[in-house]
């Protein structure tokens, strides 16, 4: 909507309150803004208007029949009511029709707990069905490609998924086939959906017709808690909700939430970025080199408290001149962490060899036109800005790792990225090179990275779900991690703000 159109407004009455909206808005949009809930299935703020579910009925004064709010353009002086007896009866009977062939298999349906059909059944439903005929049976649990499982029985034919395919990804892989009560959603001729945005169909499906293979049967949604955070998958920085069961310290899924940056959507790649935070993947404790008098395994390192490991790190740093120390930092830390880290290592200790831990093969400029960017580090811009703030050249070079290896440093303080998707193939090679390069203090959140016993000084880090802070995305917009993050895995994992504070105090 252009500026000029946006300034033209009109006023109409909604539930006896005067509301002023831009010209061209529908009653549904106005109600959504005012916080008035009109039951609906097919309307979605990110998609075009279809008006097929006939559920969002409202009463307009002076018109003989009820109208659908989603396709009712507001006109000046219009008087709309959303909660009359007539409207309630309409909702009740519309829902009865939607439920005629719905299998009611909520016990095995993943949507149960966040299903519009369930919610509306409880709020506006007609509890006793008038239907005596048998339900029409349709194909269930079909693999339609991507991350999707399709259950055509549960579908209420709202056509949100068809419109998403047509309008957002422009792939048009889905259609409605057959007619009447045998109508089903399906793909064309076994041509499976294959793009990077499939799980959005699971989000927009108001019922459980689309469920996600990744989340299928893993947890009932009412056990999950969510926080508002930022996706760390690429430099777009989509605003997301992260779902976890905090008692288990396990993470289950990521869903987008509306923002200017990402609209209503996010990519499938970002959705999988919770798995690396689960306990079995994590570096749980610090490692320090084994002393001669210590017993333990044959390895040259022992598990230690993080405070001991940091004290050891300070001893080690004292052995080297600042010019022999190299700081190798990934572009996945928050601005706050960069500030504290550089303040300590660069300004306070005088380490001047600071490199970005990146992959030289990564395609930073790549962009799929929708959301996904080739730069798989969420805070490249913030990294550069923080370097500039301590007087270093604000360049986050792709060849940072190779430069560090060639810099002639003898002691490497390496802060590893938590998400190595952007490292096309070479991350393991880089770890190998690093282990052979000299003395290394490895900061990482992933047990996988510290697997090699040659890393005898390892400090465990927090992951993004456990941190607060800000990222600076590719469009120079600040995006926040959760203000109240999830409880960390244990008391050993720390973020770099806490680690630098510990380093400074003892």
């Amino acid at each position, binding site marked *: 909507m252009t500026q000029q159109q946006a300034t033209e407004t009109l006023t109409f009455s909604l539930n006896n309150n005067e509301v002023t909206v831009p010209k061209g808005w529908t009653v549904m949009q106005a109600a959504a803004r005012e916080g008035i809930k009109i039951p609906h299935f097919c309307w979605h703020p990110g998609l075009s208007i279809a008006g097929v579910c006939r559920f969002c009925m409202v009463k307009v004064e002076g018109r003989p029949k009820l109208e659908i709010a989603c396709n009712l353009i507001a006109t000046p002086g219009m008087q709309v009511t959303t909660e009359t007896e007539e409207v309630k009866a309409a909702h009740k009977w519309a829902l009865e029709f939607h439920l005629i062939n719905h*299998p009611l298999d909520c016990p095995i349906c993943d949507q149960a707990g966040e299903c519009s059909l369930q919610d509306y059944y409880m709020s506006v439903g007609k509890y006793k069905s008038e239907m005596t005929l048998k339900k029409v049976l349709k194909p269930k649990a079909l693999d339609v490609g991507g991350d999707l499982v399709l259950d055509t029985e549960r579908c209420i034919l709202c056509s949100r998924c068809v419109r998403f395919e047509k309008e957002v990804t422009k792939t048009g892989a889905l259609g409605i086939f057959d007619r009447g009560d045998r109508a089903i959603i399906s793909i064309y001729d076994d041509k499976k959906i294959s793009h990077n945005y499939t799980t959005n169909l699971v989000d927009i499906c108001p019922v459980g017709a689309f469920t996600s293979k990744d989340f299928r049967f893993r947890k*009932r949604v009412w056990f999950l808690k969510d926080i508002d955070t930022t996706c760390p998958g690429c430099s777009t920085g989509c605003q997301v909700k992260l779902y976890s069961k905090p008692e288990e310290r396990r993470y289950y899924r990521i869903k987008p939430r509306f923002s200017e940056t990402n609209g209503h959507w996010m990519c499938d790649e970002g959705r999988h970025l919770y798995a690396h935070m689960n306990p079995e993947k994590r570096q749980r404790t610090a490692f320090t080199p084994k002393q001669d008098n210590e017993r333990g395994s044959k390895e040259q390192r022992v598990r230690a408290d993080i405070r001991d490991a940091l004290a050891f790190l300070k001893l080690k740093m004292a052995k080297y001149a600042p010019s022999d120390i190299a700081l190798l930092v990934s572009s996945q830390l928050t601005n706050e962490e960069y500030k504290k880290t550089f303040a300590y290592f660069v300004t306070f200790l005088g380490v001047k060899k600071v490199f970005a831990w990146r992959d030289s093969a990564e395609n930073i400029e790549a962009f799929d036109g929708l959301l996904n960017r080739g730069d798989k580090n969420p805070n490249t811009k913030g990294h550069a800005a923080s370097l500039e703030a301590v007087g270093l050249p604000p360049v986050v070079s792709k060849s940072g790792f190779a430069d560090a290896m060639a810099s002639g440093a003898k002691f490497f303080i390496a802060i590893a990225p938590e998400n190595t998707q952007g490292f096309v193939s070479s991350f393991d090679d880089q770890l190998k090179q690093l282990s052979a390069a000299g003395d290394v203090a490895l900061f990482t959140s992933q047990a996988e990275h510290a697997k090699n016993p040659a890393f005898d000084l390892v400090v465990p880090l927090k992951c993004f779900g456990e941190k607060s802070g800000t990222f600076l995305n590719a469009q120079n917009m600040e995006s926040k991690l959760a203000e109240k993050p999830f409880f960390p895995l244990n008391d050993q994992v720390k973020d770099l703000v806490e680690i630098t504070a510990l380093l400074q105090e003892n």
Partner: protein
Amino acid sequence: MSVKKVALPPVDKNVLSQAWGFVSTIMTGMRLTLTIFFKQLLKLEKSETLEWPEAPATYGDRFKGRHFLTRREDGQVRCTACYLCATACPAECIHIEAGQHPSNEIEKFPVRFEIDILRCVFCGMCEEACPVDAIRLGPEFAMVGGPGENWVYTKDYLAARPELNSGISSIKSENNKHSTIDHEPTAKERKTELHFGAGH
């Protein structure tokens, strides 16, 4: 509220009459006790006392004892792993892990279904919450075991322990998913099929 004062009943000052009062009541009681004792000793009357555990003790079908999982007609567990019992459980003693069933008809089934019986408070909420009549509390009340006993009941134990007599079928049939109970439970579907009572 105000307190209403009432006078105490007059006290009998005669000691002998007081004593006779006590003795006569004791004798009335003893007469009853001894009558029943000798009647039961001479088998003139049936004793209500059970010699448990040698003799079996029974409770009604509605007793909330040790859980069991009902089965489908083909013998598989009826449970669909919907977690409603685990959600309703106030003691948080039910642990379920759901999985994809090879048959699309069933779709979801419990890979693991465990009840930590030491945490269970036998409230019966799981039974009430279950939408498919998969979990029930049976009339077995005696759960005895030493330190080596496994107090976490597994799916196999809950569905097919020997006492269950090759399993109890659910009163909700799979073919007619959404019907309510349309028939009286058969003997195979009732809890009374269970052997119970002899605590070992």
